[in-house]
């Protein structure tokens, strides 16, 4: 089979698999369904792995329906796979496989009338995400954006007995659909100007026009969808609401890879469509989005620290890390892209593993409340180890993939924005500190029992509907094996030198706009310039160790601080928390769960982005 046929197959295989599950699902026993869905997910992994291997350091281009352009003008849709796109699709497929394994025995009772529905939806979700990662056409990207959105809303609200998932899913659905429609409006504006729909084709035609309000408006509108999907502040409000309440396997996918697809969308659309001559200047893109990324990272980290609802804590940690990813791609250098790719790969494994262990807690105790679970995780020794290791990896402990990605990004940011080092170290330390704090309290019962006290609006996480019926059963082995494997994967990303090298080459390809355009019509010349270094350096290791150490210190202070009798420490804590409350409480109030607020913030975000961009071009 020619390499290019593997591209549409990555979408078609899961779709056909979903159909198969729906049709055959009602006649097959549970075991057969599980086996079938695992086989299908593995097939897609195999397809994408083959594609990764065959594409090598070039690009695979598939003109769907055989509509190759004649004299540079075509009517068809093109799929373009380079190693960043294919790698993200492969990451999706691997995570889907992990989730399928994790949920083997997860839902004790699938919907009785439709047993195959949950895995079928997971497979359609995979099709949507792979399609979005591999397409080279703006409208097609919108379609797949909506596909993954629609499935994600349904999956988030899957547990219909509990009101919170439903509310989260509704917020998620409304905000994301609205953003998608704004993107479509932007696509309409671009089509009106250029008469094209492909990324590269639009980019080529934009070069013939001057830079004006239309370009700025189209740029901001088109990026609305990916920005909301990526939960960049102030578009991030839906994310904690949805990710905190979705069924655990779905959380693993949402936080692990769907949000990152938003970042990918921003980077891909900017590089292929807007980065050319008469486009949005790189300096403008860089300054704007580094600022937005830093804001997102800080908001996410601060809010993450405040949470006692474990899943909400992990969701806000995702917001924080997404801010770092956005900074990475906004540096507009191959090094930034390579670092982000490594970071995303490591983060996906770590975050999915953390959610998976939280799912075990929910399964055992029907609660994800840090206070309520105090000391109750003691008998779950392996879970505790995994959770702690996950927390350390989140802080960027070498040699995890997260640490390597963070190190490369820090190095990339250092020359132009030295202050970003503080953001990187601080955000990793604070998010990881929150996770470690929870690990110490829940799995070790460390420190004094946390006291209930009113600290502003919050979601506690107690009284969750358990996602399974029978809490007295033993923990199903896949539920702990899968997070262990995922953490090993995150470790492998950092340890295996090949991955870093290949992603460095891929990043150089990703940032080569001319090569992308040329690849559509024939073999493209290899990009010039050296590919960025993506190995471990002494500086990267020490920064990783520093953030890990900081994370341990803040976690220890939070857990044992109240028990320390010293007056000075006590007074310092009081002042710190008093000032913190003045800043943090208004921030917490903003996360109100109110759809109207979120829509307002969406409009405000767009307005700010418009003004900021227009001021710089």
């Amino acid at each position, binding site marked *: 089979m020619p390499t290019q046929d593997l591209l549409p197959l990555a979408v078609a295989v899961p779709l056909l698999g979903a159909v198969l599950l729906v049709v055959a699902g009602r006649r097959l026993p549970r075991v057969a369904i599980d086996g079938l869905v695992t086989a299908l997910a593995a097939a897609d992994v195999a397809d994408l792995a083959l594609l990764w291997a065959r594409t090598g350091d070039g690009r695979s281009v598939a003109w769907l329906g055989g509509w190759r352009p004649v004299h540079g003008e075509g009517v068809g849709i093109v799929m373009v796979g380079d190693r960043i796109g294919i790698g993200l699709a492969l990451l999706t497929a691997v995570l889907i496989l992990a989730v399928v394994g994790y949920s083997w025995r997860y839902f004790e009772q699938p919907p009785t009338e439709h047993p195959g529905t949950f895995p079928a939806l997971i497979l359609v979700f995979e099709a949507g995400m792979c399609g979005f990662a591999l397409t080279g056409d703006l*409208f097609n990207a919108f*379609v797949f954006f*909506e596909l993954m*959105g*629609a499935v994600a*809303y*349904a999956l988030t*609200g899957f547990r*219909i*007995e*509990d*009101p*919170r998932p*439903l*509310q*989260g*899913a*509704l*917020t998620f*659905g*409304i905000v994301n*659909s*609205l953003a998608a*429609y*704004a993107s*479509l*409006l932007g696509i*309409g*504006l671009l*089509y*009106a100007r250029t008469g094209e*729909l492909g990324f590269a084709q639009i980019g080529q035609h934009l070069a013939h026009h001057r830079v004006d309000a239309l370009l700025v408006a189209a740029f901001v509108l088109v990026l609305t969808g990916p920005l909301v999907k990526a939960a960049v502040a102030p578009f991030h409000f839906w994310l*904690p*609401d949805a990710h*905190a*309440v979705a069924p655990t396997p779905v959380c693993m996918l949402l936080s692990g890879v769907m949000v990152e697809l938003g970042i990918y969308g921003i980077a891909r659309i900017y590089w292929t469509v807007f980065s050319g001559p008469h486009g949005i200047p790189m300096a403008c893109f860089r300054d704007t989005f580094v600022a937005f990324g830093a804001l997102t990272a800080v908001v996410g980290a601060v809010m993450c620290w*405040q*949470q006692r609802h474990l899943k909400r804590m992990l969701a806000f940690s995702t917001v924080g890390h997404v801010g770092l990813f956005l900074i990475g791609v906004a540096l507009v250098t191959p090094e930034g892209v390579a670092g982000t790719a490594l970071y995303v790969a490591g983060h996906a494994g770590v975050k999915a593993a953390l959610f998976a262990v939280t799912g075990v807690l929910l399964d055992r105790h029907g609660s994800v409340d840090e206070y309520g679970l105090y000391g109750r995780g003691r008998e779950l020794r392996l879970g505790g180890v995994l959770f702690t290791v996950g927390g350390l990896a989140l802080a960027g402990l070498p040699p995890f993939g997260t640490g390597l990605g963070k190190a490369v990004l820090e190095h990339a940011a250092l020359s132009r924005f030295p202050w970003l080092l503080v953001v990187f170290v601080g955000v990793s330390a604070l998010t990881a500190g929150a996770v470690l704090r929870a690990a110490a309290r829940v799995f070790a019962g460390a420190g004094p029992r946390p006291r209930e006290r009113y600290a*502003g*609006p*919050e*979601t506690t996480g107690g009284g969750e509907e358990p996602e399974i019926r029978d809490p007295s059963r033993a923990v199903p082995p896949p539920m702990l094996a899968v997070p262990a494997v995922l953490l090993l994967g995150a470790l492998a990303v950092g340890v295996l030198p090949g991955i870093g090298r290949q992603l460095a080459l891929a990043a150089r390809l990703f940032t080569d706009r001319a090569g992308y355009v040329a690849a559509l019509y024939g073999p493209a010349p290899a990009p010039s310039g050296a590919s960025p270094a993506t190995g471990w350096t002494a500086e990267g290791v020490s920064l990783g160790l520093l953030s890990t150490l900081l994370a341990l210190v803040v976690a220890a202070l939070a857990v044992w601080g109240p028990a320390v009798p010293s007056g000075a420490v006590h007074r310092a804590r009081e002042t710190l928390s008093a000032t913190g409350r003045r800043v943090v409480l208004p921030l*917490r109030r903003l*996360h*109100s*769960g*109110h*759809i*109207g607020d979120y*829509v*307002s913030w969406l*409009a405000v975000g767009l307005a700010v982005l418009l003004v900021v961009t227009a001021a710089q071009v």
Partner: protein
Amino acid sequence: MSVFPYLVAGWILLIGLYGMVRSRDAIHTIGCLAVAQSSTYVLLLAVGYRRGGTSPYFSDTPKSTTVVDPVVQALALTDVVVGATVTALLLALAIQLRKRHGTIDPDSLTGLKG
């Protein structure tokens, strides 16, 4: 006239957003989302209109006829389907939310905050 249709599309989006911001009922919010979405149809089809053009199919008209842009119509068609299905999905969520939460007034949906 030269930009009037595009402005109408923008107005529809903004008024839909306004309705969502002021909404007191989740079903109403979803309805406003449908309104906001119709702005995309209007913009797309306005972009594709061509003076003196007629619709792009040739079963009852010669091949040489001037036609309007068919691509935007195909896009709008896809968009209509997407909008309808997403609306249905959101309404399904609203039904269950009302059952479990007792209300769909955004002001009273306080399960998630902080």
